[in-house]
């Protein structure tokens, strides 16, 4: 009950920020439309809707890190947090309260991306539903990254690092915009070590119906999600103790 109350408040704080709505829902849709328009004029294999839609959907989730990190960092800087620490709310209420409301926001964003993609030519199959379901661990990964950064950075730093650096890094190292093999062996090795490319490839495999051959990508995503979530919880508890 207390967790739901706190998560309801967090959801309102996120949804009522117009910039969040633009970046969360508008920006990925604009990218889908723009790149599809380029694809229709200059056909590029990478921007075929079957490859583009999963990539943009995963890229859109990187904004969930920005949402959660800035909300947590702003809360930490405000007296509201100090007040809430003197109430019966427990650490689990705070952690779940921050994480839970962003999952439906992330899911809604994915649904919007795939719906627009259908209008752009993505075949309507059950794979879309599977794909949206498999985006949940990816969403948790990005939300946990937000919890982690929000626990250690101030709101300005969180905005800069999550809004600029992380979104760019996760875009470059995910093979959405260009084939990472073209950037050289070292670049590919780094990308393969990180979860972003695996999240995109996992989505592409699900949409194309070849999920069975892509379990390695799933292991990477789930592994990173568990490690980052644990680290984020530890860092959140550490800052809570410090306050």
């Amino acid at each position, binding site marked *: 009950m207390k967790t739901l109350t706190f998560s309801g*408040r967090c959801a309102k704080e996120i949804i009522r920020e117009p910039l969040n709505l633009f970046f969360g829902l508008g920006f990925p849709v604009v990218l889908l439309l723009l790149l599809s328009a380029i694809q229709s004029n200059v056909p590029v294999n990478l921007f075929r809707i079957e490859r583009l839609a999963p990539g943009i959907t995963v890229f859109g989730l990187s904004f969930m890190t920005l949402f959660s990190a800035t909300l947590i960092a702003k809360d930490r800087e405000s*007296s*509201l947090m100090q007040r809430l*620490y*003197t109430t*019966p709310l427990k650490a689990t209420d705070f952690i779940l309260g921050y994480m839970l409301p962003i999952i439906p926001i992330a899911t809604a964003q994915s649904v919007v991306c795939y719906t627009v993609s259908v209008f752009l030519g993505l075949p309507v199959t059950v794979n879309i539903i599977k794909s949206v379901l498999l985006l949940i661990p990816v969403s948790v990964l990005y939300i946990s990254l937000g919890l982690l950064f929000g626990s250690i950075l101030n709101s300005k730093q969180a905005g800069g690092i999550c809004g600029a650096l992380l979104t760019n890094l996760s875009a470059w190292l995910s093979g959405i915009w260009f084939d990472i093999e073209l950037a050289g062996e070292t670049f590919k090795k780094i990308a393969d070590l990180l979860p972003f490319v695996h999240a995109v490839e996992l989505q592409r495999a699900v949409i194309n119906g070849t999920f069975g051959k892509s379990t390695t990508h799933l292991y990477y995503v789930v592994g990173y999600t568990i490690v980052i979530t644990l680290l984020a919880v530890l860092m959140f508890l550490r800052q809570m103790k410090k*306050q």
Partner: protein
Amino acid sequence: MVAIKTVNLTKKYKDTVAVDKLNLQIEQGTLFALLGVNGAGKTTTVKMLSCLTKPTSGDAFVDTYSIKDRAADVKQIIGVLPQETAVAPKLSVKENLEFMCGIYGFSKDYRKAKTIELAEQFGLQNILNKKAGKLSGGMQRRLSIAMALISEPSILFLDEPTLGLDVIARSELWDTIRALKGKVTIILTTHYMKEAETLSDSVGIMRDGKLLITGTVQEIIKKTNANSFEDAFIAVVKEGEK
């Protein structure tokens, strides 16, 4: 009956002693003003008593509950108004009040009734749907106090509640605090001597983490042979320097 009792309450940060063996007793239903210059240890004391920070040594009992061992029980009976306004800016006045009700686990019906009651008590009825972040400083502070009172705390901590408010807003807030006296035990920290004089039943003056004197305003003036409470405060603090 004693509402708060501290026993050698101490807080150290590395080499700095923020609060040094504080022994204090506050009677139920009274307003106790904790005064001192910057860095005297007032806010750290409030933070320890409201379970925001753990004491390095010693203990305090809030309505018989130890702040060290029974923090969860303490949190159920206290309300805290932090130094700065503590409201959720993107939530409306009504949502802020309901949010606090939810945190204390109130039922939906009780939540509604309590929101209406506090909105009326604090003159917030006409701005219930306005976003808290859009309110004036005085109104935000009023909402902030209403939020602190929503759980019907028996002990209320007000950390410099009128800091940054204009004369009118300050006077209105004093009226609100006066109305609470007798029903709730209030611990107020302030830099304004007039505020302590006007509102408090008893006063404690701190310096460098130590409690230098306690008593009523009149008792302290008499003890220091001063002409005013401000002079008495200066005399006590300067004496503490020696």
